[in-house]
């Protein structure tokens, strides 16, 4: 966002300092979140999340694959984000790749945990079909359709909603195959297993503008930020991942302060999101 005049910049900064932002929100208030599930019928699960003018779609596709040698008892999950040029003309061609990679990596860090798979928001051992031989590979694809700031939180919310919308087909494994052979499987197209998404964290991004920090910044506000810290928190209030973006350095005590604020805000966000997901699913069924 380069087209802001000096007056506009001061207005945004002054508003944040006085706890009254341009759209009338307080510093720690989110925009209303709208969730729609099942938007991509071809996928195993999908959701569209809108927060103000930010609009993202996430889809989950499950494919049978082979678990890695190091973790024979775990399935695999990968997250890819794509920034559509509909969101911003600057994303044309390869222009959106840098942001897309930044978002993908941040989401992987926040949702998938470490290399060992420990601490992942998604229970990877529930994706195993035959230990060491067959597992489900989950491909989570996010698409940014329209961007007005706070993409990471919106993408995190859409992935959570898409996962709770996901049905993994039940798999029957043919008995009596030799140990070293690849067992034959029968994928059911009627029975689906629902995913337990209660452990999937939400992401709260605190954007620092001037001396204060705000949640759910719009792109105008993001253009004035000095740095932003994204914290993913699960339902138990545990921190699952932290990413800091932006150039300016932060005092360690401020970061700790931000974390405790994020923890507090996340409770409201999780409750809001859960009720939105539940009503979206109810609407889809009716």
């Amino acid at each position, binding site marked *: 966002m380069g087209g802001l005049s000096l007056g506009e910049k001061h207005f945004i900064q002054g508003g944040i300092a006085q706890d009254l932002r341009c759209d009338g929100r307080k510093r720690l208030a989110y925009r209303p979140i709208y969730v729609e599930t099942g*938007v*991509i*019928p*071809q*996928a195993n699960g*999908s959701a569209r999340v809108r927060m103000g*003018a930010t*609009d993202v*779609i996430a*889809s989950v*596709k499950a*494919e049978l694959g082979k678990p890695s040698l190091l973790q024979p008892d775990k399935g695999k999950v990968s997250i*890819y984000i*794509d920034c*559509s*040029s*509909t*969101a*911003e*003309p600057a994303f*044309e*061609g*390869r222009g959106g790749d840098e942001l897309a990679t930044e978002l993908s990596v941040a989401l992987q860090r926040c949702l998938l945990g470490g290399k060992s798979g420990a601490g992942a928001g998604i229970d990877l051992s529930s994706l195993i079909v035959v230990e060491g031989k067959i597992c489900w590979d989950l*491909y989570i*694809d996010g*698409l940014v*359709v*329209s*961007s*007005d700031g706070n993409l990471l939180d919106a993408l995190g919310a859409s992935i959570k909603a898409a996962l709770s919308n996901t049905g993994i087909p039940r798999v029957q494994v043919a008995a009596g195959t030799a140990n070293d052979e690849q067992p034959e499987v029968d994928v059911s197209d009627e029975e689906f297993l629902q995913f337990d998404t209660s452990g999937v964290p939400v992401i709260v991004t605190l954007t620092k503008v001037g001396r204060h920090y705000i949640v759910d910044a719009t792109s105008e506000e993001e253009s004035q930020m000095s740095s932003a810290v994204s914290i993913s928190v699960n339902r138990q209030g545990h921190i699952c991942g932290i990413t800091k973006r932006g150039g300016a350095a932060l005092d360690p005590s401020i970061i700790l302060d931000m974390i405790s604020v994020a923890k507090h805000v996340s409770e409201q966000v999780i409750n809001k999101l859960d009720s939105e997901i539940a009503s979206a699913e109810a609407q889809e069924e009716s």
Partner: protein
Amino acid sequence: MEFVSPEGLRLDGRRPMEMRQIRAEIGAVSKADGSAIFEMGNTKVIAAVYGPREVQNRSQQISSHALVRCEYSMANFSTGDRMRKPKGDRRSTEISLVIRQTMEACILTHLLPRSQIDIYVQVLQADGGTRSACINAATLALADAGIPMRDFVTSCSAGYLNSTPLLDLNYVEDSAGGPDVTLGILPKLDKVTLFQMDSKLPIDILENVMQLAIEGCKAIASYIREILLENTNQLEYRRGV
């Protein structure tokens, strides 16, 4: 394979001359100057228009008329099998070009000299006829952006399988290998702006298939007109006129 049953029904239960259900929505991307979602059955595309605005790359500026650009991209999840890195392959470049040329023909570019209009189309779901759906979505988005046009372009495809002309092919019928005619018309001027066909077809049959596609385009045109009218009425209501 049998694409038309003896009872005269197609694989998805349609009659040969029946179109899939179409749905359009204006204003899907609030940050863009104009935008629309267009659905034809399971095919779903979003179009966003930015402009008319200052030319970003000065060397491309044209002093007599507007510069029209178009980018077509497919989402990773848009097809049945997941695919990676869809941007910039030959197929999307070709479709971008087709959409650009088609839209350029109907925009009154000479009224907007030294400016640039960007059309971005994003396929969310592909089930045959993405080309047509993209053009229809782009028309709506251009109209939403208030860009002067001669007429709007509407597009529809038709094919010929099992000795029957079929309107609006879906993915299975499209990949059957029969002829696939994609047609774009200017409904008010009654002129053809886009015409593409692959594989061979006797001329007299082509005439039938083409007529069918024109009927399809006209049906879409009347729907698009309805949607635009409704949108304008709503705008009027909001302004309190």
